[in-house]
């Protein structure tokens, strides 16, 4: 028998029951796919996405200030390119030391294809299409430059380079919100993907140190620290996020002296941060539990102080173990930003609601939700992929192999 046929038979038609299941599933898949394609190509009216693409991207951000967001996007692309290139420039024997491993070639190909295709599908004007292409070109060019000439840079400069990333975040905040001579744009005018990404990146960055402190507190031998951390973590984890957001919107005004309560967008950002910290603490705690006691004792007996021993011996190992669950938390944090629409913020889902309330696009729910779902799916899946790649890189066995 033909090996392919034998393989098919073994995989799909091993027993009569298996055969029935296969046929039934094929029927379901076929019916689902055909009705989806019919919907997507003949019934769906994608004009609702094309006409509102700017709204979905940045909300009601003033049009005459949008150049700041373009500049920020270009800066982000440049930073991504440089980081990517620098990471690849380290000689890695398991990759044969090539500057462009296969996955990178695929990624660049995808990026270029997306930057050509997406703006065209969204019906953006030719000049905007060109802008996206230029941004992608900057990314790829810097990726090449950093990979090729990065190793030739002087050592101190290379060590200082990572500091550029937090600096970039601060620059981004100024570009978005204004200040330092730029006209201020109030947070109530931020929206769409911009607000979603701002909220989730803010919460991810700030919940990290908080979560580590809480995890250390929970494992501390000092009763006050331990019980304080336990109380906080369990309280936060016992409440649905929506009730905490509700608390933030309705009670923060009472808890702070009059006029000191932050803007609604910032209130939500802080609630998200404090919420995520409790969950992150549990992830870090499981990582800490996986580090043998002997590591701390060895570090201490070498004369390291307690903070030194934690910072340079225990935490790095704990972080590696906790990485998958931490990224899992970040993914759910990104998804949880959709809850902000329930308290009236204009993040992606909130923007979608206003778009669908527009009489011109009434009843176009399916198109809008489908687009958002694809967007979220891609972001979350990318985070998951990145986490798995990082896991492989940090795996002690792989590090030992590459010397």
């Amino acid at each position, binding site marked *: 028998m033909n090996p392919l046929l034998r393989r098919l038979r073994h*995989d*799909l038609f*091993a027993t009569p029951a*298996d055969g029935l*299941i*296969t046929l039934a*599933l*094929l029927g379901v*898949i076929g019916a689902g796919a055909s009705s989806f394609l019919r919907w997507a190509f003949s019934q769906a009216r994608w004009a609702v996405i094309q006409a509102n693409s700017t709204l979905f991207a940045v909300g009601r951000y003033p049009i005459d200030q949008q150049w700041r967001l373009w500049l920020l996007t270009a800066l982000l692309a440049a930073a991504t390119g440089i980081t990517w290139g620098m990471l690849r420039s380290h000689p890695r024997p398991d990759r044969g030391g090539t500057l462009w491993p296969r996955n990178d070639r695929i990624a660049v190909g995808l990026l270029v294809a997306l930057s050509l295709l997406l703006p065209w599908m969204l019906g953006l004007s030719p000049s905007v299409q060109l802008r996206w292409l230029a941004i992608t070109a900057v990314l790829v060019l810097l990726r090449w430059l950093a990979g090729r000439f990065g190793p030739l840079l002087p050592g101190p400069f290379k060590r200082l380079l990572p500091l550029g990333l937090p600096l970039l975040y601060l620059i981004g905040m100024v570009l978005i919100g204004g200040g330092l001579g730029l006209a201020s744009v109030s947070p109530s005018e931020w929206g769409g993907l911009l607000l979603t990404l701002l909220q989730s990146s803010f919460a991810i960055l700030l919940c990290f140190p908080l979560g580590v402190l809480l995890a250390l507190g929970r494992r501390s*031998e*000092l*009763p*006050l*620290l331990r019980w*304080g951390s336990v109380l906080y973590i369990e*309280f936060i984890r*016992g*409440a*649905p*996020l*929506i*009730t905490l957001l*509700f*608390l933030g919107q*309705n*009670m923060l*005004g*009472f*808890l*702070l*002296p*009059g006029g000191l309560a932050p803007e609604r967008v910032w209130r939500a950002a802080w609630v998200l941060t404090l919420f995520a910290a409790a969950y992150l603490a549990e992830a870090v705690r499981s990582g800490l539990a996986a580090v043998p006691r002997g590591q701390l004792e060895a570090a201490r007996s070498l004369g390291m102080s307690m903070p030194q021993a934690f910072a340079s011996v225990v935490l790095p190992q704990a972080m590696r173990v906790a990485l998958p669950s931490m990224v899992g938390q970040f*993914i759910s944090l990104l*998804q*949880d930003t*959709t*809850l902000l*629409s*329930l308290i009236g913020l204009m993040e992606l*889902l909130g923007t979608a609601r206003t778009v669908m309330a527009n009489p011109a696009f009434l009843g176009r*729910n*399916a198109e809008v*939700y489908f687009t*958002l*779902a694809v967007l*979220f*799916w891609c972001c*979350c*899946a990318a985070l*998951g992929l990145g986490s798995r790649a990082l896991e492989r890189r940090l795996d002690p066995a792989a590090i030992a192999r590459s010397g």
Partner: protein
Amino acid sequence: MGVTRSSLPRSVLGAGAPVPWWRNRRVIPWLVQGAVGLTVLVLVAFLLSNLIRNLTAAGLLLSWGWLSQPAGFDIAETILPFQASDPYWRGLLAGLVNTLRVVVTGLLGATLLGTLLGMASFSGNVLLRNLTRVYVEVVRNIPLLLQLVFWYFVVFLSLPNGTAAIQLPGVVLAKSGLYIAGFAEGLRWMGPHLVNGVWQAPLRWSVEFGALLTGLIAYSSAFIAEVVRGGIAAVPKGQWEAASSLGLSWIQTLRQVVLPQALRVIVPGLNTQYISLAKNSSLAVAVGFSDLYSVAETTLNQTGRAVEVVLVLLGTYLALDLFISLLMNGLNRLVQIRER
């Protein structure tokens, strides 16, 4: 021969200079705790004093009298009878009963579907195995709220009414609700039927409830499938081989050999998933189902009693989580291995 004290260099002994008190190992813990405790205390005192001052200024100082005032709003679908003239506490209670209804039905449905999916991911059928993977990856990477509004606005609200409604054996899905067969008066089995163009059945669920339940079950079952998969994967391969060499079929092996062992790993994971399902049920407000949170929101809008409403909400959800945890811990003790 031991080393005498005098033969060691001074620096090793640290003799001479006495250890300053702030580096004394018995003092440091108290210093740290004192500092942290003081900070927390000052912060709490600051927040509380503001709260009391602001509440006094607004005339909303903590009181529970408003709970017995008439609510003045209606709840569309309740098990506990409720009218607009009933007091607020009864409205909140009706909301809680609705929440419990979603949580209990959701738990059952998600456990069933999740277990089936988790088992299917070990099937010999490649198509089935990969399809469960795709399902899990798709569902887990899309926000639950987005899925809920999709089920409600796109699927359930576009169901046809009357004779065009989707008729399955024993169940009719229409825009006016989901009609499910059951026992009518006199223990007579009755399916859904049309009366003057309107569907009638012993059991009717609103589309809001249906959408919420579908969304929650679809979402949670993906996570439960992963828990079940992890539990089954934790059972050594030799167990499968031993069972099949004894002549047990795939289903028999799974049911009588693998699952009882896998349950030990599965139950703690299920606990986490059940608690998140209970918390996620608060997203009912997005599809217009009146659960506890949605009633509480309306109550706050009418009374302005932010502190009390938030306390009720947090307390109730905490109690619900604790209750689920207690149940699952009991179950966990049952399935744990007992060695004589």
